[in-house]
């Protein structure tokens, strides 16, 4: 992808708003993957994600050349996609979402983690990614992600896939940096716990 200046990007958006097929194509090639990943990552539903992609692109093109360059466009895309996706979920929150409390570490009074030692020292991290990301383990991971509330998935994707800073994620979702950090950490602890229950030795 060639480096674009703000002027190039503005011109592209202006042409796309006028219906220029090449400009629309360039915008789609450049940004549809990002919008889809975020929309799917939050809703976990391909049909919902597709509607969101269409909605976000239509809004983007109608906004035309109002964006002040590429950085402004990218943060607009993150913000609008996140909001549209979270609102879509709100209408049809699924039963699978459960409290994360069951999946957070517990501690003894002295601050040591509670639980059988074989479970506490279980370390499956050296297993190859090919194995962890396929078959039954992949299914466990996907189920675990499904169980997270949508606004937890939103911060995970923005941080780990879109590679925004904690500050940028906070601006995108309209929360404080400490709230974003807490949510990220709780989401990661819960996913880790679910994977370890499946991959480590049994907890009793």
């Amino acid at each position, binding site marked *: 992808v060639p480096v674009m200046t703000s002027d190039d990007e503005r011109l592209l958006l202006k042409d796309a708003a006028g219906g220029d097929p090449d400009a629309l194509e360039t915008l*789609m090639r450049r940004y549809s993957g990002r919008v889809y990943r975020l929309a799917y990552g939050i809703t976990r539903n*391909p049909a919902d994600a597709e509607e969101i*992609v269409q909605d976000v692109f239509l809004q983007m093109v109608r906004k035309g050349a109002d964006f002040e360059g590429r950085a402004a466009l990218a943060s607009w895309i993150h913000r609008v996609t996140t909001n549209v996706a979270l609102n879509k979920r709100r209408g049809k929150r699924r039963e699978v979402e459960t409290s994360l409390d069951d999946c957070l570490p517990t501690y003894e009074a002295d601050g*040591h983690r509670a639980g059988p030692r074989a479970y506490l*020292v279980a*370390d499956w991290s050296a297993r190859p990614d090919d194995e962890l990301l396929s078959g039954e383990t992949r299914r466990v991971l996907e189920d675990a992600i499904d169980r997270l509330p949508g606004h937890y998935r939103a911060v995970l994707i923005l941080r780990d896939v879109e590679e925004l800073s904690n500050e940028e994620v906070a601006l995108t979702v309209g929360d404080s940096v400490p709230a974003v950090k807490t949510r990220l950490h709780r989401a990661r602890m819960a996913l880790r716990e679910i994977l370890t229950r499946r991959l480590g030795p049994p907890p009793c």
Partner: protein
Amino acid sequence: MLTCHDVIDVLDDHLDGALAPEDAAALERHLAGCEPCRAYLATYRKTRALGAQAARLEMPDEMLTRLRRFLRERVG
């Protein structure tokens, strides 16, 4: 002396390199003597990476085709 609870609370900051040097040093001292926390850190770090990899999806080609049609019908 840090407890396991203290260590787990700051793992994200640790992985981001955001801890003050003296806090990072205290964390390393705890890790050196605590096998459960070493296992926790290793699996936590791996979880972060796996979650990101699992989320790196491509939009299906047929959706791109439908998006193109959708926009051409409405824009211009």
